[in-house]
């Protein structure tokens, strides 16, 4: 009887999964090594052109924290045929928007435009790939701009992004994972023009990049344009990646910080994660959703609702930087909470351990796991919705796995996860000796 019930339920849920979404993927490499992905869709009359270079702040030069990001700014300072700020002028006056960003393992440059302007974007990206043109004056200007960016996002803010910058620096031992990714102001100030030119020559090669064109375009027409603009950019030798591996953590790390600008205390936690390619990864993704994926999750319910210690709860894999797939190296699972004065970070850690212990001993429920898969699917569709969201996943799958079609295999891997696997990864990874906790409290103000 129970078995038959189960089969019936399985049949219903198979029907309820809804229309499958398949992202069209055309993938090839130019002779110069450039990876090219074209994904056609006509939901909106728009296109994203995204160029991802395989270098991020993780491997930036020692003694030059923040350099990869400073360099990203320099890519907007002009190339042979596009003067400083002309890139933005051309994209915007064609009805598009643009940006660039630096992350752990890539730096991206992208524009989303009305789809009939796709050629303009390809011309712009090819011009700066072949001929970055920087000057002392522009470098000085952008050092100032980037220093203000660090001030506005870190130094003048309560908490100073401690759930990202400080957790990574405290939880890791290998410099590549444990330095200040946004950059020390003195290092940013010390950067030199020939270092900028050298970084460009070293990493900004067609054979170290993935170019994605996603949206309302015809793959054949785009293919010809890609050949026209990128075909003759010479390949370069790219140095081997340094060893970014992280030694296993053996002892819990607990830190306390004071904050001059905050008025309410906060706590951040970080756990080292299994490798993205390991069988433990997909279960970990779902366990994260069950523990802290939304307001029904175990940690939110316990800390915010039942105990009323936390004011909020957020967290995730690659938290505040990206998603479960867009990196290539050691990674942390992070939680962040602001909590009510009168309580302590230790109290919260105790509650977290109690919640985790429950999962380790009894596992999660079948309903929680089924729901987490639905939650994942829904979140994943959100990422696929915009042409940039889709281009982002395609680019990182191309860059890190040489296989952008993985975008269509993600949901199957998630759907295959079992209850036992979820319980097992909770036992393996969510243990105190794999954890770093930072309790950040307001600095006591002297009475005036």
């Amino acid at each position: 009887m129970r078995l038959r019930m189960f089969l019936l339920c399985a049949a219903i849920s198979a029907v309820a999964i809804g229309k499958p979404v398949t992202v069209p993927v055309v993938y090839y490499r130019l002779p110069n090594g450039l990876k090219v992905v074209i994904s056609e869709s006509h939901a909106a009359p728009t296109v994203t052109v995204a160029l991802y270079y395989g270098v991020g702040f993780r491997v930036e030069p020692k003694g030059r924290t923040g350099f990869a990001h400073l360099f990203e700014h320099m890519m907007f300072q002009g190339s042979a045929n596009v003067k400083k700020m002309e890139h933005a002028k051309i994209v915007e006056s064609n009805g598009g928007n643009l940006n660039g960003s630096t992350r752990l393992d890539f730096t991206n440059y992208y524009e989303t435009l009305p789809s009939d302007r796709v050629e303009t974007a390809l011309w712009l990206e090819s011009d700066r790939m072949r001929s970055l043109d920087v000057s002392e004056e522009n470098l000085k200007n952008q050092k100032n701009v980037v220093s203000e960016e660090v001030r506005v996002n870190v130094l003048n803010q309560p908490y100073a992004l401690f759930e990202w910058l400080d957790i990574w620096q405290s939880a890791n031992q290998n410099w590549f994972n444990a330095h200040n990714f946004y950059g020390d102001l003195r290092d940013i100030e010390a950067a030199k023009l020939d270092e900028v030119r050298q970084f460009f020559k070293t990493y900004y090669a067609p054979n170290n990049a993935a170019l994605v064109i996603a949206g309302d375009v015809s793959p054949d027409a785009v293919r010809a344009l890609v050949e026209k603009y990128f075909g003759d950019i010479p390949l370069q030798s790219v140095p081997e990646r340094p060893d970014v591996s992280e030694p296993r953590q053996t002892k819990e790390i607990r830190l306390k910080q004071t904050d001059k600008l905050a008025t309410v205390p906060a706590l951040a936690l970080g756990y080292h994660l299994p490798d993205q390619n390991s069988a433990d990864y997909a279960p970990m993704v779902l366990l994260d959703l069950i523990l802290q994926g939304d307001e029904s999750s175990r940690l939110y319910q316990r800390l915010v609702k039942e105990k009323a210690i936390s004011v909020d709860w957020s967290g995730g894999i690659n938290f505040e930087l990206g998603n479960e797939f867009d990196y290539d190296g050691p990674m942390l699972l992070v939680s962040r909470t602001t909590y009510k004065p009168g309580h302590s970070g230790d109290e919260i850690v105790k509650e977290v351990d109690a919640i985790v212990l429950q999962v380790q001993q009894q596992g999660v429920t079948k309903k929680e796991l089924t729901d987490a898969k639905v939650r994942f699917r829904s979140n994943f569709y959100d990422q696929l919705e915009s042409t940039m969201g889709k281009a982002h996943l395609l680019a990182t799958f191309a860059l890190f796995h040489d296989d952008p079609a993985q975008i269509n295999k993600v949901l199957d891997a998630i759907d295959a996860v079992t209850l036992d696997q979820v319980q097992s990864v909770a036992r393996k990874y969510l243990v105190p000796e794999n954890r770093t906790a930072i309790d950040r409290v307001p600095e006591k103000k002297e009475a005036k």
Partner: protein
Amino acid sequence: MRRFALALLLALCVPAFGEQKTPPPPTPPRPIPWPAITEKKLDNGLTVVMAPLASVPKITTELTFLAGRGTEYRTHPGLAQLAGRVLTEGTNGRTSRQLKEELRSIGGSMSVSVDDDATTITASALSEFSPQLFDLLGDVARHPAYAKSEVALARSNFASEIEEERSTPDFVAEEQLDKAIFGRHPYAFVVPEPTEIEKVTPEQLKAFAGARYVPNNAHLIIVGDFDPAAIYDQAQKAFGSWQRQPLAAEATAVPPRRDKRQIYFVDRPSSVQSTIAIGALAMPRQSPDYMSLRTAHMIYGGAFYSRLTLNIREAKGYTYSPYSQVNLRRRSGSFSANAAVRNEVTGPTILEMLYELDRMRVAPVTKEELDAAKTYSIGGLSLELESQAGMASRINSIYTYDLARDFLQMFQTRLDALTPDDIQKAAAKYFDTYRGAIVVVGDYGQVKDQIAPFGDVVVVKH
């Protein structure tokens, strides 16, 4: 030599290889394929607007009540905001936890925002679960429980959030600017004092919801991958039997006309930057000046390639992300220019921000600038088609501000009609900092001498 000839030959056969010196020529503008928007009205007065957009198999809804955060703020500050935030914390038939678990099982989300004019419940789910989504949305809107324990928790969390927000310079600057611009008008109200929240009771919240969260004070926007006939049935099922109620008149108040510039300095010791907001009173969203002010703002500081960015970022290196914003609402609105800069360049930055504002007022923009702003505006609007949430919010603005129903379709035509003279007139009228406010949040001890030349300074305690 032969290779050279071959290359030349190739150059004739296919588009030129290698470096191309100029951008590809622009293509002529195309009409934008806006979704078919259907508007219906239920007998109880609820307006239902549907726009199919099959970007992904999901559905997004926005249910908006015309009840802003300033409603009753003089007698009950925070009441409207608490009424909104406790909506998703349980109904007569579902606990908060049940509600969140049901949402999880349909890949759903539900959140409530309360702005100057409206309370909006935004809810989304996978398309295949749309009946469950409407069931939840109907229950939340019609039968909120306002349980004692949930109200107590929400009060305490809201108070902590306010304290936290007030430690961030952007929030402090925005709050102070609204106060300065709107004076005794309800738009001056941003958040209550944490101590005031304690006084709000479950009974008051219930009464507020009963009077304001009613179908004849609401519109429902539905965007996503669905069949309109089926979705309309689901909406009718969820909301059809909802009773209309008599509505209280919206309070009227006139924002103050200032006769001189005033500087408000919020002292935040230990700040390593000054957060600057220069603003002035503008006009309601329905004003015929909308298109010209919007475009003036694009040229001044609404795009990356804008005068403000070119000056204080790319030429001077004072700041990272300067911007301007036009915030027009049902009854009034404001314009502001914003930048966060290191302490030592506070004065020079204000000087340049004011200079660029005045330059817009005394000289016409170039044709090239205006054409670029037009293409950027229409392109930006068409990019909203990439997202169900973006389209839902765009369509919602048509109903919240009661705009012409062909706003999207007519946007390009109205934009094309603008001349440099229109832009200058709008700037002259609305970029008037001689009757505006300058707010600086920063370390007063360090930067006060740089501020003094710009006008009278009131120091506000942080």
